[in-house]
């Protein structure tokens, strides 16, 4: 199929899906709205993580750090009187600055050490939020001003806001995937030294990826905070989030455009269906899902069941003699 046609089809599909999402929002009941918003948030976080963890291959467990930072930055800004939109912009800015600083420090580490470093950051951030009472309200938490209007209005508003962010994240991912930047990230993932020798400014690319990812995650945190109206350190900086997001992306297929989306959808649906009936075993079930994904679907659903893989299986083998 000619390239132009696939592009048009993809664009068309996106418009159809977007319209369906919006219509659903207006027709849904409160529970469905909330579930839809949760799903949107998962999609956002997965797409954002995918840039650093999927394309670039750096195992970041720092998602919770940016999420909590965005939540608190947005929340604190709002308690000081800033209108919500500006508070969200402030959260994005804070996320960007934090990503630059953190990136400059942590991105020199590789593999295990990078992973541990990102976890440590989450823990430290949570403790700071817990103990810096004057700024964050401490362990008691922070209450945000509530959006004016009916609960239904608020529900639809945040639903649309989160899905708008999801669309932004998707378009960003597509742009990265097709650009020189994305190509460079993939080179970095496979062989950092070779990438450098071929002319890639590895450090700059790494920080740029970290910042892109960080801004989106921080925005998600800010929207989340405004939506729930109350945040506390152990929920905003929850290490479980830092684990769930990579697992969702891995489930879908890391390093692709749609993988994170599919992974998020499958995981959230599973969670809603199975979990609610087994509240006490909720972390055990997450554990089982993790083990199952790693043993049985390590490359992700998109790759294990892709059309190209099927074609590869059924195609004749590559020529043996390479003279």
């Amino acid at each position, binding site marked *: 199929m000619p390239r132009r046609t696939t592009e048009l089809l993809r664009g068309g599909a996106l418009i159809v899906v977007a319209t369906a999402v919006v219509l659903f929002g207006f027709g849904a009941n409160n529970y469905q709205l909330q579930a839809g918003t949760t799903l949107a948030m998962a999609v956002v976080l997965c797409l954002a993580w995918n840039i650093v*963890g999927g394309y670039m291959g750096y*195992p970041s*467990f720092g998602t919770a750090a940016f999420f909590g930072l965005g939540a608190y930055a947005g929340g604190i800004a709002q308690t000081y009187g800033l209108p919500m939109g500006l508070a969200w912009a402030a959260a994005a800015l804070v996320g960007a600055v934090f990503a630059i600083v953190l990136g400059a*420090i*942590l991105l*020199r*580490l590789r*593999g*295990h*050490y990078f*992973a*541990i*470093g990102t*976890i*440590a*950051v989450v*823990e*430290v951030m949570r*403790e*700071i939020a*817990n*103990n810096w009472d004057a700024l964050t309200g401490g362990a008691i938490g922070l209450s945000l001003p509530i959006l004016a209007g009916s609960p239904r209005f608020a529900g639809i508003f945040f639903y649309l806001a989160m899905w708008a962010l999801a669309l932004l994240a998707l378009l960003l991912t597509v742009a990265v995937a097709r650009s020189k930047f994305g190509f460079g990230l993939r080179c970095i993932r496979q062989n950092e030294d070779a990438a450098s020798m071929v002319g890639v400014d590895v450090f700059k690319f790494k920080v740029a990826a970290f910042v892109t990812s960080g801004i989106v995650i921080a925005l998600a945190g800010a929207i989340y905070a405004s939506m729930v109206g109350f945040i506390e350190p152990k929920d905003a900086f929850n*290490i479980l989030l830092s*684990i769930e997001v*990579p*697992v969702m992306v*891995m489930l879908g297929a890391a390093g692709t455009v749609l993988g994170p989306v599919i992974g998020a959808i499958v995981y959230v649906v599973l969670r809603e269906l199975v979990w609610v009936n087994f509240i*006490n*075993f*909720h*972390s*055990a079930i*997450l*554990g*089982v*899902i*993790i*083990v199952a994904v*790693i*043993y049985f679907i*390590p490359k992700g659903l998109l790759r294990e069941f892709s059309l190209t893989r099927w074609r590869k299986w059924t195609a004749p083998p590559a020529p043996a003699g390479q003279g």
Partner: protein
Amino acid sequence: MIAQYVANGLLIGSLYACLAVGFSLIYGVLNIINVLHGTFVVLGAYVTIYCAQLLGISPLISALVGCAVMFVFGYLVQRLLINEVVAAPVFISFTLIFGLDLLVNNAMIQGFTATPRSLLVDYGSISLFGLSLSVARLGAMALALVLTGALYWLLRHSQMGRAIIAVRMDRHAAALLGIRVPRVYAITFGIGALMAAAAGGALALVYPITPLLSGVFLGKSFVICVLGGLGIVPGALVGGLALGMLESFGTIVFGSQWSTTVGFVLMLLVLVLRPTGLAGRKGYE
């Protein structure tokens, strides 16, 4: 006075050394981050407490039973589950073991409930150099140091210990020499679990233990290993004592609620500035 803080630091530091050495061993030899470590500590402590309190066995024997049980558990977990991902990138192995940890921890909370349990014994205190030291804590410290020392001896002087060190240095070369690497991995993991249980038993003498503490123990082990550096036992000792001192003095300077954070911040600093740890490259045992 200062001396009391130093003594406290040393007492808790020895426990910390024992806590971290199993984690360090597994990281050094298998090159994976054993996220189950904290849970192993709690599990080991619980087996010890169960034996001592419900079966009426003496605390020391109970601790040994705990160690033995955890060794077998660790061996099986590695052989059956973790061996598949031993060579995988850190992201995969870390997440998998995290998943297993969620499972086991949740099961523990359901089975044992989150009520803290302990083996608190009151043997009173003794006075040494003008300091008041609880005998139970001294006992725990002694137990921790003896076991850590035993591990060091094992690694240097026994055949299995030397095989483990060989695998740590170069797993391919070790395989070529006829060492059965998967078996060494499983035994090492078992020993790591054993040391966790030992630490659990020692800690139970001094603190109440609950499954909710597994994360704390794991976090401290991370910090200790990074602080202490690459040698398995010397690293754990240096790191453990350093953290013990840090927490002891940190309470005065920062207040007790900041002590965990200070540990993590210091860890980040060491990671970035001096990744070989405070002790530097200190050999393979």
